């Protein structure tokens, strides 16, 4: 809710719904006959179409990456810290494209869309998706926007997985891959956290086997709980200690007092869960976490990541954050190791941060310096052509 739009903001933006009539054959074998992508773009495409950057969103992200939809907006887009005039992803220099992925719940075709065969919301019948399906739909989006080759494809977490898949599937359609706080595949512990979150959703009586929209209800408790679990894992112990410690929101430990005690962290988590469950779709959450679990970059390459990356021809920037324990620096180092063995150009840095996995979304001077240094190289390449 800005009084005035800051100078380094892209300002008021309007998403556009782009419709695709050409059927999309999905990795699961099913076909989406047609679909819509909700997309935001910032900046302008240059004459030779060489300055386009694709931003791939993560689990709970969407197309609204920067700016405001209206002056009444509570907060700007999810990557507003990094996208805007003079910011690392400089909208004065680049044409930045951020779609909401299919399966999402912010306007692109997904479980809350109407299934043309039944006239009811897709709900649990929406086809399961893989990261490669998103990449395929994003490639078609590039076609439609007149972008033959991205200057860079960029993403954090699940977004980083899309970036790596892009590099393997369409090697000649991107020059740079920026992979942030990501991994070539999830660990068992990571899958376990996702399964607990999914179970929370499924156990909500309002879930109705996924047909809650038909029943005109929402599994808000389950989705809220799922978010709480996820949220804790995206933060670090240190950050939660600094932010909340053992501060009480209500009650007291004084003898003779029996009013209910509530820690600040409890109230914070509940707020996170409530806010999320009012703005996100449970079936989308199930679908997105499964896509995350199923992703395995090297599966089709005989489980050899070096062989996988041999198919890439872009340059890579890989970034991790020291306190990120869901996509730890060790996972990033595996990506880098494979890239080196595959003789790819790569720069890697592990940014010192106590913000956990969420660090990739938040301001951090060094993070911004590295992104800016890398992006400036891309700018130099474009202008020297």
């Amino acid at each position, binding site marked *: 809710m800005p009084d005035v739009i800051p100078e380094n903001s892209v300002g008021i933006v309007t998403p556009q719904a782009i419709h695709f009539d050409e059927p999309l054959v999905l990795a699961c074998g099913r076909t989406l006959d047609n679909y819509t992508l909700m997309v935001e773009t910032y900046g302008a495409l240059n004459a030779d179409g060489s300055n386009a950057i694709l931003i791939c969103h993560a689990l709970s992200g969407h197309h609204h990456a920067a700016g405001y939809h209206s002056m009444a907006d509570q907060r700007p887009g999810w990557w507003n810290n990094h996208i805007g005039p003079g910011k690392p992803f400089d909208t004065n220099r680049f044409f930045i494209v951020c779609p909401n992925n299919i399966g999402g719940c912010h306007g692109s075709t997904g479980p809350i869309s109407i299934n043309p065969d039944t006239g009811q919301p897709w709900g649990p019948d929406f086809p399961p998706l893989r990261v490669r399906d998103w990449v395929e739909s994003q490639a078609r989006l590039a076609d439609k926007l007149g972008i033959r080759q991205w200057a860079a494809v960029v993403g954090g977490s699940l977004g980083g997985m899309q970036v790596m898949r892009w590099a393997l599937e369409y090697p000649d359609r991107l020059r740079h891959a920026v992979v942030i706080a990501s991994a070539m595949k999830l660990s068992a512990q990571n899958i376990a956290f996702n399964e607990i979150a999914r179970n929370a959703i499924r156990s909500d009586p309002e879930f109705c086997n996924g047909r809650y929209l038909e029943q005109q209800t929402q599994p808000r408790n389950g989705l809220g709980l799922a978010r709480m679990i996820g949220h804790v894992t995206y933060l670090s112990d240190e950050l939660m200690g600094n932010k909340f410690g053992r501060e009480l929101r209500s009650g007291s430990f004084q003898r003779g007092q029996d009013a209910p005690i509530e820690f600040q962290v409890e109230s914070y988590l509940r707020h996170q869960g409530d806010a999320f469950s009012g703005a996100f779709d449970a079936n989308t959450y199930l679908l997105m976490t499964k896509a995350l679990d199923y992703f395995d970059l090297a599966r089709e390459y005989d489980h050899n990541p070096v062989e996988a990356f041999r198919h890439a021809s872009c340059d890579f920037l890989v970034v991790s954050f020291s306190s990120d324990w869901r996509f730890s620096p060790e996972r990033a180092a595996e990506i880098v190791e494979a890239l080196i063995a595959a003789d790819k150009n790569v720069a890697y840095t592990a940014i010192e941060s106590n913000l956990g996995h969420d660090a990739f979304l938040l301001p951090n001077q060094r993070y911004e310096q590295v992104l800016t*240094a890398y992006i400036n190289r891309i700018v130099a390449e474009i202008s020297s052509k």
Partner: protein
Amino acid sequence: MMMRTDLNIIQQWIHPTSRILDLGCGDGELLQTLGKTKGVWGYGLEIDADKITSCVARGVNVIEADLDEGLNQFSDNSFDTVVMTQALQAMRYPHLVLGEMLRVGKQCVVTFPNFGNWRARSYLLSRGRMPVTRQLTFQWYDTPNIHFCTVKDFEALCTEKRIRILHREFVAERLPDKYMKGIWPNMFSDTAIYHLSK
């Protein structure tokens, strides 16, 4: 900091278009120069945040890494030459790092400040305190250089570890060191440069 003389000497041992690994690559100058002049291609490892950013800005392949943790991410003989300039003395276990360099690289180039230089010797002898020189400006308690050695020490280590010395060059800028370094390198050189193989 790397001097131009070091760079020129090292260049003559690096084959055009070879694959190199630069340990402690700093701001990426060596890799960038070798890339431009010799079509050399490779990676640099660095731990300092600002230097990593400089490398990224130059377009050098820089990997954030702590050299004391070894070079596990690289397979045997995966580089033509592994270079380490002015960093050996800052390693926790220089002999292990040297072993790793020779495992990963077919050849190695190592440069280090020679603590056997007469200026260091006379500083200690006359003042009775750890030398602080123009090249080595730290106090003993805050220096990153925790394992100084002399030319003689280094060669003794090479003999012990059966490392072949292909070439050795010595650098000294000042007088009389400049003229004397060839006769008595351990006494007069500031910097020693070694070209090694297994």
